[in-house]
């Protein structure tokens, strides 16, 4: 794991290179802070060797709106900064949904919602089958709150605790997108057997503490993002 200075302004600058937006728009991206904390403080990755066997795995299930993701990957050195300005253009490697075959550091191609969590369960099982020690080598999957409406997520949400996947962390970025209003997401997940907690999705210290916690069953961190910082 790396202990990097979490330079939020730098990520905002890089994301703005991708979208061409004014900086204040990039600043409001719901995933930006969680991704910055993950790649700056939590995940063990090696940008010089994206396929390093001992790395932690991160799957962006919510593939849309990837500017902050690309910005963070570029910040960590997975690909050069100048790629960002090609975002979504013909010939670019950086589309509106990430493609693992085109972008170094991207573990899974996503875009259609509800695919990442079942994939992550499979990756967590596979790491266990390879002999990765318990929660030592981790799989983190990011979904949106509205994405959780997809039934395939709830299949995997039912399954993961049954399989005692302590190496799996579900990070839900809850920006209030879902039009289905039920009990809070972390309470729903707890009923299904997850060790779930809710944190402020802009609070780096809270995100780092929650995402770094080691569990013996699947962990869920619901990061609430309601207002522009």
């Amino acid at each position, binding site marked *: 794991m790396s202990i990097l200075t979490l330079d939020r302004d730098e990520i905002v600058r890089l994301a703005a290179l991708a979208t061409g937006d004014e900086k204040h728009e990039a600043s409001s991206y719901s995933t930006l802070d969680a991704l910055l904390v993950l790649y700056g403080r939590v995940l063990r990755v090696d940008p010089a060797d994206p396929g390093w066997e001992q790395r932690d795995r991160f799957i962006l299930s919510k593939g849309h709106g990837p500017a902050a993701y690309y910005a963070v990957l570029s910040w960590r050195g997975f690909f050069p900064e100048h790629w960002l300005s090609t975002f979504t253009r013909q010939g670019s490697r950086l589309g509106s949904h990430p493609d*693992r*075959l085109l972008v170094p550091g991207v*573990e*899974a*191609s996503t*875009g*259609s919602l*509800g*695919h990442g*969590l*079942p*994939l*992550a*369960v*499979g*990756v*967590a*099982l*596979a*790491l*266990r*089958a*390879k002999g990765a020690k318990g929660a030592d080598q981790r799989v983190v999957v990011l979904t949106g709150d509205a994405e959780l409406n997809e*039934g*395939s997520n709830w*299949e*995997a949400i*039912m*399954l993961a605790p049954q*399989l005692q996947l302590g190496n799996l962390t579900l990070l839900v970025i809850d920006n209030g997108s879902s039009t289905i209003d039920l009990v809070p997401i972390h309470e729903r997940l707890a009923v299904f057997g997850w060790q779930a907690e809710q944190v402020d999705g802009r609070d780096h210290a809270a995100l780092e503490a929650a995402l770094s916690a080691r569990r013996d069953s699947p962990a869920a961190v619901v990061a609430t993002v309601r207002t522009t910082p």
Partner: protein
Amino acid sequence: MIAMRAQAIDTVAELFEDDPRVAVVLAEISVDRFAPVFARDPARAVNVGIMEQTMVGVAAGYALEGFHPVIHTITPFVAERALEQLKLDFGHQQLGVLVITVGGSYDYGSEGPTHHSPGDVQALLTIPATEILVPGAAAEADRLVRATYANGHLTYLRTQLAVNREPRDVEFGRLLVERRGTQATVIAVGPMLDRTLDVTAGMDVTVLYATTLTPFDAEGLNRELAGDDVIVVEPFYAGTLAGTLTEALRDRPVRLHAVGVPRAVIRDYGTPAQLDVVLGLDAAGIRRQIVSAIG
């Protein structure tokens, strides 16, 4: 005669034993038949419950980590219900899996149309680079499983109850020549071979046997082509292979005829053999359609 499903599962169990990269992901169906793999290494064998989408996604997770996953269930519940998972998790990501289905076409004759799947191959053909295998005997299923399980492609192997009397020495990606004639070319797919051979016995036609549908053996077909009529006898919706054959025969001025399952919801019940009669895929029905095609 050994059922193709039983053989395919036995073969997978052997490969699972020999190759530590094989993983098996099930959704309740056939869990009992796979008991040896669960006993051997539960870290590589998982039953996810009644979750077909997740069965596919979990298998893709294993594939991302370098394993050779095998998944299995009743045909429509993976080929149609989880088609997007097959398309994106495997097809678009260029990951390999072996999908083994049971109950092709209308094998579950008394269960009704929810369990039928004459559209499965057409659905799978929409995913580029998918390998589609339709063996016609247990020993052929064994060969094709061994030939493809670790090749890194999305491979779909379809089993039916109907099997031919004698297995052939099938080879992945190759058409076999069963009989040579001059007036027309008949292509029998998988379990349709015996009945096709029976009804064409007195006809001056070439009969080819297809067990690999994609990649299709276009070279073999063009080499063996006889006459100006090509008749495909297919155990799924009639015309499923029209696009494949049109591409294979693009330089040849031939008439293409499809003998297969009529495109209507099957509402009758009965054994597969009884439904063959209703749907025109028993020997008499196939003969009638071939004669009508080539006069």
